[in-house]
């Protein structure tokens, strides 16, 4: 039974007042490597059916994997029963009026180990070069294609195929004391130049041959796009309107309400999402498998539009469901699966920013980022895989790693330069979020709280 047939059948079988049926067909392929050799690998396929039944204001959600046709009636009945048995949901709304994707009738799009057909030999060549050059390569390559089908009793028939590829490449010296990292997001691995990435890592390992120990303290710091992505993703995840309204986030206004409309940065930065953004395109409509603080099953199939979260340095929107939008009196601005940050104009490249730095730190990436204080959105974490000292416009050596304690919201108020935006792979959050376009940032006083001995 095709996903479309399964959806139509489930909609027919349900006796609930309203029904949303979601099918997620997913296939994946991955390669993992360490020390110039492959360690694990695999291919996989999964199919998940989610039935969301609504009876009155009660909701029942049942999700099952690998559903066979003869199981469908039982699953729908279980969701219907759960909805009858459920207490009223406060986010209950009429379902979104239906639209139909032009490609609704197409099947799910798969991937396979063949996606690495050109990449795997190139990686093998890189292993050989690294071995000869006294480097060890570590990393992970993954390609996932998820095709999501959404059908609702309000007439929506939506299909979206989302390819998500990522490569993380990490080079280390044989004694493991010098380390450099790079990563790229890709839709199909056709655009991944392993040799060029390996060459850039070799350059950074060369920089690291001159080791400079610096104490903890506040330093002028250049944050590259990947580090900015990790910080801004956390900010974005925290930007739920309902939490802000209840006074529990950095975006809460003391005394009540949200900080929407408040200036966060003296620089005219823009942080936004756009489902159609080139290179980072994502689902054009809400797909919610369950309701939560930032999502509502009743919003399924709601069209997504370009949304400014921060515009001209001012907090413009928070993540809203239709329910939270009513509570806050602000427009409906649901979450979107990409994030883009830009400064005014084109901005300089990271290399140009380095060349104009008198003395400062250049990071590679951030790691183990966790929230210390939700009120200020104080985050802690570590630098990783290369912190370099820049003096008089040149990298002069590698510095020890640091633990940082910083708030990305506070940082926005202290920026002194925003570089050119480019597509980048977040380091820490790329398990969950890969579609980002970010600039490098210059921060005059980044808080390096303590030294980390880790290499």
């Amino acid at each position: 039974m095709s996903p479309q047939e399964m959806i139509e059948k489930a909609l027919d079988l349900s006796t609930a007042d309203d029904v949303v049926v979601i099918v997620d067909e997913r296939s994946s392929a991955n390669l993992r490597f360490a020390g110039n050799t492959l360690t694990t690998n695999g291919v996989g396929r999964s199919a998940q059916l989610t039935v969301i039944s609504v009876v009155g204001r009660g909701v029942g959600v049942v999700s099952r994997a690998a559903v066979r046709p003869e199981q469908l009636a039982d699953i729908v009945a279980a969701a219907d029963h759960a909805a009858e048995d459920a207490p009223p949901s406060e986010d209950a709304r009429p379902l979104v009026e239906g639209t139909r994707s032009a490609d609704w009738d197409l099947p799910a799009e798969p991937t396979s180990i063949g996606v690495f057909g050109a990449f795997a030999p190139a990686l093998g060549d890189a292993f050989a070069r690294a071995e000869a050059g006294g480097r060890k390569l570590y990393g992970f390559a993954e390609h996932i294609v998820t095709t999501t089908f959404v059908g609702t009793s309000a007439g929506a028939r939506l299909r979206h195929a989302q390819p998500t590829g990522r490569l993380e490449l990490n080079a280390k010296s044989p004694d493991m004391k010098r380390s450099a990292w790079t990563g790229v997001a890709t839709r199909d691995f056709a655009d991944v130049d392993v040799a060029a990435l390996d060459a850039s890592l070799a350059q950074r390992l060369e920089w690291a041959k001159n080791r400079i120990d610096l104490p903890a303290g506040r330093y002028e710091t250049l944050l590259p796009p990947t580090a900015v992505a990790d910080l801004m993703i956390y900010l974005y995840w925290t930007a739920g309107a309902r939490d802000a309204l209840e006074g529990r986030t950095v975006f809460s206004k003391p005394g009540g309400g949200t900080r929407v409309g408040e200036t966060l940065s003296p620089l005219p930065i823009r942080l936004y999402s756009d489902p159609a953004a080139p290179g980072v395109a994502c689902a054009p409509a809400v797909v919610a498998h369950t309701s939560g603080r930032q999502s509502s099953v009743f919003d399924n199939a709601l069209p997504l539009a370009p949304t400014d979260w921060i515009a001209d340095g001012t907090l413009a929107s928070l993540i809203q469901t239709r329910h939270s939008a009513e509570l806050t009196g602000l427009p409906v601005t649901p979450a979107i699966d990409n994030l883009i940050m830009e400064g005014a104009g084109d901005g300089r490249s990271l290399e140009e920013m380095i060349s104009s730095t008198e003395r400062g730190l250049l990071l590679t990436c951030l790691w183990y980022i966790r929230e210390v204080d939700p009120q200020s959105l104080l985050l802690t974490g570590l630098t990783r895989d290369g912190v370099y000292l820049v003096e008089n416009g040149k990298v002069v050596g590698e510095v020890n790693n640091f633990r940082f304690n910083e708030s990305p919201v506070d940082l926005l108020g202290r920026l002194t330069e925003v570089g050119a935006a480019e597509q980048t792979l977040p380091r820490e959050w790329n398990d969950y979020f890969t579609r980002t376009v970010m600039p490098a940032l210059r921060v005059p006083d980044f808080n390096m709280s303590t030294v980390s001995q880790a290499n």
Partner: protein
Amino acid sequence: MRQIDPDFLALPMRRLADAALQRARDLGAEHADFRLERVRAETLRLSDASLEGSIDADDLGYAVRVVKNGTWGFASGIDLTPEAAVKVAEQAVEVAVISAAVNREPIELAPEPVHSDVTWVSAYDVDPFEVPMRDKVTLLAGWSDGLLRDPRVDHVQASLQQVKEQKFYADTAGTSTTQQRVRLYPELEVMKTADGRFETMRTLAPPVGRGYEYLTGTAWDFPGELARLPELLEEKLRAPSVEAGQYDLVVDPSNLWLTIHESIGHATELDRALGYEAAYAGTSFATFDQLDKLVYGSQVMNVVGDRTTEHGLSTIGYDDEGVATRRFDIVSGGVLTGYQLDRRMARLKGLGASNGCAFADSPGNMPIQRMANVSLLPAPDGPSTEGLISGVERGIYVVGDKSWSIDMQRYNFQFTGQRFYRIENGRLAGQVRDVAYQATTTDFWRSMAAVGGPQTYVLGGAFNCGKGQPGQVAPVSHGCPSALFRNVRILNTLQESGK
């Protein structure tokens, strides 16, 4: 004792396994294993006593893993027919063949006795999936309502996560295991805004390998804990900000479990110590050359790994490579004496048998070395928590976990907690706030002056510990007593944020 659910046993597990393993043999695999798995997970979330969201989901499928010409191959599938299982086996072999071009290290596995047709079920009384959702919502809503009636509480968040994991494993050596286990994690958090600030206070009840009886009076006093939350929250709101500096710490098990998890549990995974996790979560300062040499902590430090602990989240009879689980030493008298192993790691370093730490979180993922229940042992005649506090002139008592972060070699860590109390002249002197403690792993454990007795021991744990690429989550428990640490660095988090 509970039995494995008949509907799982009714799945065509042996037919699929036989077909897949035979095909792998025919294609020349040196080793092949088959795993059919169903993971059912239900989550409920309530906001201010109203159901905010719920989902009852499962993941069902199977995996074939092979070693062919010294290279791993892995594939997973969802169609429960022998023909499909054969195709998945062929895919696994194909992946191994393609991958051999970039493999320079032949895969060999440590030997393990054959465990033929064995079953294992975890210790629980009431299957949470047999309890109607309405009953669970009613219980959580009732608890939330009670808290909301207290003027010291503005909002209440409540959640309940429940998992039933069922696995059938078979390999070409002749081992076959069928297992089932249940775990759940209830959590309630209260929140209050005052004077332009807000604070939260969360329950300390740990996630457990128990059934629904955990919520109705077995092993935890939820009504008693909930009754104390408003007062604790109010005190935290009124508490003074901590003065940064060096303090003696008495750390409660509700906080120390997480420090153990990050600084001992992950640091003594041999795959990590050998660099196989280097590009992702990192390596470890506890490198293999330091086995039996590294002074990890003080002489009162004794740590074991144990996948047989009753009600532990990592507890199971046989791991995902068919290895019988066991208890083993990790730190003895303060010295590193062991690692957590899977069959490949055990063979690679000539350590004999695996100690049963292979785990895959779903049928779609390959088993990797995951954490046993790693626990700090109490002193047999050790003091109570009050006894530990009485030996501190100026210090802080740390209760409950909150924020955690550690570097990629497990040296530098920073943790916060649910609440912190000043200790003055051997007595608690009220809560302080804005506290984080920061240390280097070996400095911290070497500063451990005393561990509490068995009466202070609590089995805490993590419901979803992340590791590996592709990312996998694993449940793991950590038991520990209260413990006393001398001269630890305390940060003021307000000052850290520049306020």
